[in-house]
């Protein structure tokens, strides 16, 4: 896992590519195939990738909330849903078309829906 600092002073936009993983589905051979395909896909985006990582399962999350000036912590994810973020990439590309081209290959590799959303510029 490699993190690079956001680039500044160019016309590139950073996009978040979120993988929506179905945690109710038992692990199967397709998952193993997806791991291999994602590793291969990752090799093709090294020049535009700012960050990429897979998350531990949602139950490992802790939510921190500010309620009337009091910080309250709760174990578990904020949203208990069947599908949750399984991991994501952050890429730095010239425009949405370039981001979608990469996201199309990402969804093919990881066999799950991939949501593409731009970051605000600095």
């Amino acid at each position, binding site marked *: 896992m490699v993190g690079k600092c956001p680039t500044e002073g160019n016309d590139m936009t950073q996009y978040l590519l979120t993988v929506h993983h179905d945690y109710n589905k038992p692990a199967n051979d397709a998952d193993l195939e997806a791991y291999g395909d994602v590793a291969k896909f990752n090799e093709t985006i090294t020049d535009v990738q700012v960050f990429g*990582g897979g998350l531990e399962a949602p139950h490992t999350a802790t939510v*921190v909330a500010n309620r009337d000036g009091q910080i309250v912590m709760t174990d578990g994810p904020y949203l208990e849903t069947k599908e949750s973020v399984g991991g994501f990439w952050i890429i730095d590309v010239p425009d949405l078309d370039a981001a979608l081209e990469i*996201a199309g290959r990402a969804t093919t590799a990881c066999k799950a829906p991939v949501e593409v959303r731009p970051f605000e510029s600095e």
Partner: protein
Amino acid sequence: MTQYLFSVVHDYVNNPPIADPVADAAMYERVGAFNESIKDQIVFMGGLHAPDAATTCNIANGEAIATDGPYTESKEIIGGLWVIEAATHDEAVELGKRASEACGGMVEVRPFQGV
């Protein structure tokens, strides 16, 4: 060190972006100070455009297709994130509390898988 995701859960229905520029400016200042105080532990941080700027890609009949809009339509959705490095989950949660105070929102702390 383990990497942790801090997702800022934002209520776009009741708190649309730029609804209150003065409050927003104060929030950006607090977040800036927080970032400065943990800069050695920040791997990435960024604020996202509103969910309506999202496009979702999926496979249909063996082909990747793109659809306008976010994958899930919900009132509260991620508005920005930090990726930070911390030695333990407790340390990450302590930083998560400060992140929550800085941004004035709810923060979900979740570890990345080790490499």
